[in-house]
């Protein structure tokens, strides 16, 4: 009796597994087909192009060049410059967002009332189109002699800064713009994380006479570490693919002072009309993004253990 039931269950289980599998495939199929058509084909096309010379300005040179474009890249100072800027941009925006967002969340946690106002105001920059953000900052805020930031700086008695006209301030400006738009994101995540922490651990710590800094380092930080890691991953990926706001604010300039890899690939493809090399740059950016996120994900799982 016992045994019979067992084998029936095994049999039933097998069909269950099979039908579950079929059902799963049925559910995933439409989405995958769409993704296959809309992304796989373009990726393959992109990679194929990256092995070819497609320069509209010199059509007579077009053809298969193997790794030629990638070899060019290795010796292209503009590529390395763009890569360096991408690294600076990503690291500094993510760090700034994290530090400011966390600090702000800690601050707002102390406020007895009015947190809701913060949440609402924090949403505003997040929902704006980056291209609008870039345009507004460029003229209404940062333009020398007209912009409000310029006015404020001078009104406070500082020397006027040529925000978008000089290389270093321009880089600082685009970092600032991105940080302005996305710190609220980090802030909201951190606020939610802090709010979800159990209050009793703090009570215990307070009894142990731990001071605020100790409590933060030894209790809060380890507890919100998963949130921090996830935020770093998400923000890094967004920073690596930033485009519209910089494009609208500086166009990569002055010179190439704010031309991160994404903008360089765009310029090579659409201004220099070198689609082959532009494709190679886009592939490089994709590989870098993948590599960075893989490393971050690995760090995440390792820490979790």
């Amino acid at each position, binding site marked *: 009796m016992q045994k019979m039931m067992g084998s029936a269950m095994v049999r039933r289980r097998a069909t269950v597994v099979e039908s579950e599998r079929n059902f799963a495939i049925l559910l995933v199929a439409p989405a995958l087909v769409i993704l296959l058509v809309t992304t796989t084909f373009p990726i393959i096309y992109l990679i194929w192009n990256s092995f070819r010379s497609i320069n509209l300005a010199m059509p007579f040179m077009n053809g298969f060049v193997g790794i030629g474009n990638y070899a060019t890249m290795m010796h292209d100072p503009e590529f390395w410059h763009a890569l360096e800027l991408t690294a600076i941009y990503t690291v500094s925006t993510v760090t700034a967002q994290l530090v400011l967002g966390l600090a702000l969340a800690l601050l707002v946690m102390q406020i007895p009332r009015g947190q809701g106002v913060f949440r609402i105001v924090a949403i505003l920059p997040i929902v704006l189109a980056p291209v609008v953000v870039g345009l507004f900052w460029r003229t209404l805020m940062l333009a020398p002699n007209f912009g409000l930031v310029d006015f404020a700086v001078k009104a406070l008695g500082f020397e006027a800064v040529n925000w978008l006209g000089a290389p270093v301030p321009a880089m600082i400006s685009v970092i600032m713009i991105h940080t302005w738009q996305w710190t609220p994101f980090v802030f909201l995540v951190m606020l*939610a994380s802090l709010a979800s922490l159990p209050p009793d651990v703090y009570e215990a710590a307070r009894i142990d006479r731990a001071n605020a800094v100790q409590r933060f380092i030894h209790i809060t930080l380890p507890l919100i570490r998963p949130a921090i890691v996830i935020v770093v991953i998400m923000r890094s990926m967004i920073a690596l693919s930033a*485009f519209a706001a910089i494009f609208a604010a500086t166009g990569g300039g002055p010179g190439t002072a704010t031309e991160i890899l994404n903008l360089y690939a765009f310029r090579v493809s659409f201004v220099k009309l070198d689609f082959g090399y532009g494709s190679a740059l886009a592939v490089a950016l994709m590989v870098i993004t993948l590599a960075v996120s893989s490393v971050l994900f690995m760090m995440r799982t390792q820490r979790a253990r």
Partner: protein
Amino acid sequence: MAMNPHKAANLRRNILLYVLSALILAIWAFPIIWAVVVSLKSEREVLTYPPRIVFDPTLQNYRDAIFGAFSIAQSFFNSFVVAASTTVLTILLSVPAAYAFARLRLPGRKSLGFYTLVTQMIPPVGLVIPYFLILNKVGWLDTYQGLIVVFLTFSLPFAIWLMVSYMEDVPKEMEEAAFLDKANRFQTLWHVILPQVRGGIAVTVIFVFLNAWNEFLFSVQLSGNHVRPVTVAMYNFVSVEQTLWAKLAAAALIAMLPMIIIGIAAQKQIVKGLTVGAVKGGGRR
């Protein structure tokens, strides 16, 4: 009546906190408030320096942006059609897929999951040319369906990823209870799982809509007179001769109005969406 010193210190601390907070709030809100101010000025007034706070406000810029020769009204409608359709399709496709990823024995789940992740990382710059060629081949350049399909490429992986996190939060026991009742799998998904992830769907809807509405790069290259979205149309006020800043500000604010309304109204859902995976340590990869 003397205040006790502890209370006084507390009050001082609170005042300091509020002042500091108000300052930070101002920094966040200011560019937007300033855009509103600019949109109410005349073109002549916009660049006056030092900037004037007191001026004769006018609604002419809004009138021009809505009813003028460069009305963005049609584009507003276009954006709505594209963003709404993208959202509906994305939900229809991503919810079942996310369920399968999160809960079912799916052959090759790991690699498929990795694949959807990779698709999120292709730089859009590299996709413009392939999309242009493909859409042209099928005759979908400058059509609603063309933009919608292109928008699916970035909304779908994102939505699947988001929905998986929500699916994973549904207690396993609920499904199993449903199975014992011999309800078939589809009914399980429909009657048991979906009600549990309603919040997650709302969050996904908001984010997909938001991203589709704000898109610029593909919209510029792949749309034309027929379906130009509002993020591109507002550039009508940036002509080769001059930038009409006040009208641009008005148009940009109108363009962003739905987003601002959604942002404020659905504030709770957005925060949830942002924090999904982060707070609970969540989504699997």
